């Protein structure tokens, strides 16, 4: 953990944070429509976990997917253009916020049916094994997906066939507006759900990017050398509403609770660590803020200036011709 290393983790989390703050502004200006699910508060999980894998490893996510896509290295301009529904977007404007895909980076997509992409993750892992490649799969989902039947079917097949897939459960404690205490029996240890299928599991502080990465490095190494599934419960909190139509705290959680959780901000935590260790200064953070601000401003400009898709492409990409 040297200076450059920690500052680069911080920079990526900051990029996701500022990117999404600007996305929210663009939503308010009606530049972005539909559903926009923000990852703000949960950045340490995507950044820490994806920092532990190789470029050719697969990542697949749910609908709150901007963070995973950016952490996998996608161009912020093309991501923003996708949110704007522009022809230059990652998916040519056909996917939108919840369905980002960047095949060049093996970012295999965001999926918006809760629990439905866990079987896909087992398939990616199956393919890696079948093709005798040593790729691993990171599959991100919220704790709301844990009780779904498809998740358990995926856990069982992954364990049965020893597939190299790491299920990363982002436990932000709310499935939309339903707290985990009202949605999941035996909610206090989600990792136990995976252990019931014979999957090794760990719980980690999802607000601590270094802790996430450290755990993931060990797990990824284990899964790559001795193929088997793994389950990580990363404890986190969603600082914003479920989507843009949901205010930051809503009717289902108190303002006090949200304020208290915001004190555990993963960016603030890492910044404190860096400062305490004397590995960075105010000037460093100011510089990063400047740099990231420019990247995000460029992304917005690129999205703004890009054309909408032409009506003629409507029927393209339904089938492979």
């Amino acid at each position, binding site marked *: 953990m040297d200076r450059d290393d920690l500052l680069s983790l911080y920079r990526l989390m900051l990029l996701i944070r500022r990117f999404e703050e600007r996305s929210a502004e663009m939503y308010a200006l009606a530049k972005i429509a539909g559903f926009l699910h923000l990852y703000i508060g949960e950045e340490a999980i995507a950044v820490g976990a994806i920092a532990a894998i190789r470029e050719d490893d*697969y990542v697949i996510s749910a609908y709150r997917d901007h963070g995973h896509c950016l952490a996998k290295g996608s161009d912020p301009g093309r991501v923003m253009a996708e949110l704007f529904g522009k022809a230059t977007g990652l998916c040519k404007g056909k996917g939108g916020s919840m369905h980002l895909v960047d095949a060049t980076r093996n970012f295999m997509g965001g999926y918006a*049916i809760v629990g439905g992409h866990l079987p896909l993750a087992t398939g990616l892992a199956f393919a890696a094994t079948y093709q005798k490649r040593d790729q691993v799969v990171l599959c991100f989902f919220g704790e709301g997906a844990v009780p779904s039947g498809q998740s358990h079917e995926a856990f069982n097949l992954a364990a049965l066939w020893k597939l190299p897939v790491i299920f990363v459960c982002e436990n932000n404690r709310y499935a939309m507006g339903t707290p985990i205490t009202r949605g999941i029996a035996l909610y206090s240890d989600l990792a136990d759900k995976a252990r019931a299928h014979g999957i090794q599991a760990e719980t980690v502080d999802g607000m601590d990017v270094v802790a996430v990465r450290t755990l993931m490095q060990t797990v990824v190494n284990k899964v790559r050398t001795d193929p088997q599934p793994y389950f990580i419960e990363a404890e986190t909190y969603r600082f914003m509403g479920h989507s843009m139509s949901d205010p930051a705290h809503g009717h289902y959680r108190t303002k006090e609770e949200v304020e208290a959780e915001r004190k555990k901000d993963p960016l603030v935590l890492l910044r404190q660590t860096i400062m305490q260790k004397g590995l960075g200064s105010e000037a460093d953070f100011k510089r990063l803020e400047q740099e990231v601000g420019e990247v995000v401003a460029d992304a917005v400009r690129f999205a703004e200036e890009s054309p909408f898709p032409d009506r003629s492409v409507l029927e393209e990409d339904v089938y492979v011709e």
Partner: protein
Amino acid sequence: MLISYRDALNQAMREEMRRDDRVFLIGEEVGYYQGAFKVSKGFVEEFGRGRVLDTPITEAGFTGLAVGAAMAGLRPIVELMTFNFGILAMDQIVNNAAKIRYMSGGQLSVPLVIRGPGSAAHQLGAQHSQSLEAWFCHVPGLKIIVPATPRDAKGLLKSAIRDPNPIIFIEAQLLYSTKGEVPEGEYTIPIGQAEIKRQGDAVTIVAYSKMLLLALEAAEELASEGIQAEVVDPRTLKPLDLETIVESVKKTGRLVIVEEGWRFAGLGAQIADSVYSSAFDYLDAQIVRVTGEDVPMPYSRPLEDAAIPDRARVRAAVKQVLHSA
């Protein structure tokens, strides 16, 4: 070579698995049991457990696994023990397999075949007797193949396995033991091409899968009364070869559509609409549909018979379109 529909499917998969090692078979009982209907007889012995995968009874789980494997470049064949059980995999089929190409703006593709029997057999009850092809046909991104003969089953399954899109390939339990001539050696049949199975000039009957055999029998009976029916087998429901159907209708001026599925919003309604749009001026009578009744399939034999099209109903429909001229 005279072989059964079952053996035709077996040959198609075997040839394609020998030809392309990305192809694998996955489903309930496809390995050591050799398939619930013995379609994969000898497969686990030839290809091994790595390419012939017995699964637990989790249709969503293993269909989704196959979709993911296809996204990563493999060519899975999913065997559904029956399409009734495939309902459990509808999320994977409709929300993932059919849409991933489009949602990704053409970056990803899902070369996948999902096959197994649809429609009623004999007294299997309401949950094992459904003709669900209309459900799949409604979804953009899927292709739907419904072969009736061993020759078509083999040639179309080989094309399906080579196709880069997700394909729903619906067989029928009552067809597995039927026999027919199949060409020697390598051949494929293009997806989306209908075939005129019987020439005639008085009336066009469109029928597919098991109902094709019924239509051909009814046509023979009608021939003894001097009525020559032309029987068109679409073979593929989506994309539909409307041109061949319309050409036949232009010749006969009359159309009967036979399907086993439920009447309301069934395939025949779509085919009739397409024909009305393309060939209204050539029709000498209203199109008549012969369909399954809009009820869950009853168990009792006389009730089940009443719910499924039979030869008498096909003959009556033909006479209806002839007499209304």
